[in-house]
């Protein structure tokens, strides 16, 4: 009976998500029309879009919990001797439920402290709009708790109750900080024992900090979802460094309501619609005939397409989510094995940042006070070097595996274009509308969704409402899973910024390191870690102001510094264990995270060499500058 009720809730949420997804595409699309025809905008469209994303993220995250779709490392558990399984399972459950409970209380306190009771967004109460956060977190706690009592798991009757009890108790213990803060804001005279309770809880956590974080990391290696491990560690670090743990929820809220974020769900949905229809079959024919006539041709085409797409989506990982599915399929049909496909698509999903008009370059120019044109000129050769390295890997692979080339026949190419004409038009539409200045990046995503919905429904008749529900059911948990990881890692970044760790590191370097070469090597390592831990926009805002003076000390050309910075970050997104693109790839290609780690190794080495060349041969960046 329970499962039936669960699946009813899930179907209902899929329906809600579908409506939200359609709205998310419709609002910016309408905005474009209204702008073109009436020179105005849709009322509150910006605010509406940001809350739709928040809703999609949290319903998606709930659905990911329901479908056991949250990203995690599964391999460790497989090799675990069976006598350890129950205790590992129990510890993992306790971590998951207590962390979710801590975030639940923090989110309630966050909403009450930050938003006034009467505050409105458009015509809707803001507290109501943000209530989706605690509601979905509560739902996730209920699902996780029910799962303890599932017949199939390894725990016995009594220990199940014990695990649930410890989970909730630990969750409430972690919540003391938020509850105290909440009382101080809401009550005229908060009870005095709250202060004492808060101080005691901080004392206890300070002692337990290291072992608990260690247990969380081990538990993460044994299958506890990544977002819980990131969230739990961050939450504890925030608790012992001053409290006000609602800040963790604030960071999630800040990321999810960010200006560029709606592009992620929009391009992801576009990609899923294409890969769930027969577009892949139609397109592979075209790809084989158009690019298959020279060795590695299709792989090179795939690398170029990914790099190009990343150029204007700005490496928020959208490339893999949007194009990954369909390119994965195309490479499969071409005869490329899973490991190579995963590796090359994951790595080419983060190159392309160095070409105009990439937003990270523009942002770097603004923050470092450099001429943006010079940065664009400087990026061309280093960017091409990265693209070339991956393309070369493709050629070597095709030779080694004897993948035969097709004949070049213009007539056949034209015939294959005819079959998939409307789908091939999509990149053109995206490019023209974005580069002509007709649409912003988010609006471009909306155009893509609307266009694909129309052609797949009416031209190719591959899509109907129930198929759309399937697409949403598959993609929304992925979107939710990714966005919540993004939120948690933003919270971790905040902790580091708050503790001034980047500043301290840069002061340490300036004081200790004298050699330019040592500095550059250290810089590579630090930037790799940065790309691994921070999204690109936070990284630019936080790290660049520290980097510019360091560059002066070690006599590095400021433009070259910009190229070093971005090239390293590109590689950072591929760095195990927490490079963002690895997570995205695991989701999109439905490969276990550990397999993605393995697949990336050769490409990581190739790109590492390229990045070293870019770092140590400044001429590559500076040759075209006057």
């Amino acid at each position, binding site marked *: 009976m329970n499962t039936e009720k669960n699946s009813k809730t899930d179907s209902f949420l899929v329906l809600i998500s579908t409506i939200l997804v359609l709205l998310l595409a419709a609002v910016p699309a309408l905005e474009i029309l209204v702008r073109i025809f009436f020179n105005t905008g849709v009322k509150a469209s910006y605010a509406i879009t940001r809350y739709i994303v928040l809703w999609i993220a949290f319903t998606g995250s709930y659905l990911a919990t329901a479908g056991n779709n949250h990203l995690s490392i599964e391999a460790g558990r497989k090799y675990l001797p069976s006598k350890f399984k129950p205790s590992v399972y129990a510890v993992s459950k306790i971590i998951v439920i207590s962390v979710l409970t801590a975030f639940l209380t923090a989110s309630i306190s966050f909403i009450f402290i930050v938003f006034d009771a009467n505050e409105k967004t458009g015509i809707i109460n803001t507290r109501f709009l943000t209530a989706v956060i605690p509601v979905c977190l509560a739902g996730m706690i209920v699902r996780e708790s029910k799962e303890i009592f599932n017949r199939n798991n390894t725990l016995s009757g009594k220990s199940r109750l014990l695990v649930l009890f410890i989970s909730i108790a630990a969750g409430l213990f972690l919540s003391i900080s938020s509850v105290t803060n909440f009382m101080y804001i809401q009550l005229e005279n908060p009870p005095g024992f709250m202060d004492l309770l808060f101080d005691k809880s901080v004392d206890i956590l300070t002692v337990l900090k290291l072992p608990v974080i260690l247990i969380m990391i081990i538990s993460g290696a044994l299958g506890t979802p990544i977002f819980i491990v990131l969230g739990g560690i961050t939450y504890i670090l925030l608790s012992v460094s001053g409290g006000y743990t609602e800040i963790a929820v604030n960071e999630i809220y800040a990321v999810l309501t960010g200006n560029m974020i709606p592009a992620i769900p929009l391009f992801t949905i576009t990609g899923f619609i294409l890969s769930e229809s027969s577009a892949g079959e139609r397109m592979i024919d075209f790809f084989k005939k158009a690019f298959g006539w020279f060795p590695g041709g299709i792989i090179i085409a795939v690398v170029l397409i990914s790099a190009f797409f990343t150029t204007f989506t700005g490496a928020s990982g959208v490339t893999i989510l949007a194009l990954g599915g369909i390119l994965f399929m195309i490479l499969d049909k071409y005869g490329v094995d899973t490991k190579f496909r995963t590796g090359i698509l994951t790595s080419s999903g983060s190159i392309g940042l160095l070409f105009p008009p990439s937003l990270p370059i523009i942002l770097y120019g603004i*923050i470092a006070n450099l001429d943006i044109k010079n940065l664009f000129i400087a990026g061309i050769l280093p960017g091409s070097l990265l693209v070339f390295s991956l393309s070369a890997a493709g050629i070597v692979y095709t030779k080694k595996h004897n993948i035969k080339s097709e004949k070049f026949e213009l007539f056949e190419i034209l015939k294959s274009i005819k079959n998939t004409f409307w789908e091939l038009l999509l990149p053109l539409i995206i490019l023209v509308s974005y580069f002509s200045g007709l649409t912003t990046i988010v609006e471009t995503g909306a155009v893509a969704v609307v266009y694909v919905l129309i052609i797949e429904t009416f031209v190719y008749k591959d899509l109907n409402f129930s198929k759309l529900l399937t697409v949403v059911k598959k993609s929304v948990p992925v979107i939710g899973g990714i966005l919540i990881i993004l939120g948690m890692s933003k919270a971790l970044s905040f902790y580091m910024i708050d503790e001034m760790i980047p500043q301290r590191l840069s002061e340490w370097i300036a004081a200790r390191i004298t050699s330019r070469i040592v500095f550059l090597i250290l810089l590579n390592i630090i930037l790799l870690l940065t790309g691994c831990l921070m999204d690109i926009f936070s990284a630019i805002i936080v790290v660049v102001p520290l980097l510019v003076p360091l560059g002066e000390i070690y006599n590095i050309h400021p433009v070259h510094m910009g190229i070093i910075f971005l090239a390293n970050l590109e590689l950072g997104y591929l760095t195990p264990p927490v490079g963002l693109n690895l997570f995205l790839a695991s989701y999109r290609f439905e490969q276990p995270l550990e397999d993605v780690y393995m697949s990336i190794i050769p490409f990581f080495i190739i790109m590492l060499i390229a990045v070293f060349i870019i770092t140590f041969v400044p001429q590559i960046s500076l040759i075209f500058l006057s």
Partner: protein
Amino acid sequence: KIGTVAPAGSAWETTIKEIASEWTRISGGEISVKIYSGGTVGDEEDIIRKIKLGRLNAAALTSQGIKSISNDLFALSIPMLVKDDDEFNYVFEKIEPLFNKKMEENGFVPLGWAMTGWVKWFTKSEVVYPDDLMQIKLAVDNSDDKVIKIWQSIGFKVIPLSLSDLMSGIYSGMADGTYITPYAANAMGIAEYTPYMLDLQIAPVYGVLTISDRTWKKVNDSYKPLLLKRTGEILNQFYGKITVIENEGLKIMKQKGLVSVPITPDAAKEWDKIVEDGVGLFVKESISPSLYSEIKKYINEYRKK
């Protein structure tokens, strides 16, 4: 912990640093200050949330940002409401107690206000008359619906863009101009793409240094008078300092091709007319009518003098 979006090394940031070291000196080291500049702890909306939550204690905010504490605090930054420094100073002095009260009602103690500069139009083609501006596409901040609506009602073609899209919007040709202070225009390098600056002061941007009332309560009362006095003194010098830097920035931008377009007497008349029609709209949409009539009263009082 003080948060600000002003970049490290900027005029705002160095002034905050100066104030911070005064606080430490006055309190004999009891108050230690950490400054988080350049938006590293979020945009102004985010900084305000962080202060409400308690993790940050203070902030240096602009009149753009304090809108999310209360819309009324933006009142004097309404485009073309006050015309020049003298008018601004006169009205601000009268209205400051009201602003302070608004801040305090929301849990923020204002430590001092400062004028920071005037926003001007930066465009790709030469603009003199309002009609010229109505022909081109103008990028405006998309986070405030009311302001967007008002520009539209006056007859401007506006492209609501987020700040992060602003540069690429100008770069790609989605927008042909925007309004921004010359100081910020120089910092962002925007003038290269929009080389015409109309010599018309559209709106003043002012800033406030504020601390949460929870934090203020923890400060020893005996330090407070001196803290406020020194903060006020330093902030009062700020406008003079930033004007010098802004003028240097203008010189640099002009060397790179920026054209400052003088406003002719009959163009000025037309802009005045726009103001008459436009300000009413702004007021209806965004600030409380009682505050507006009060401001209007002071403006008229000043103009009669």
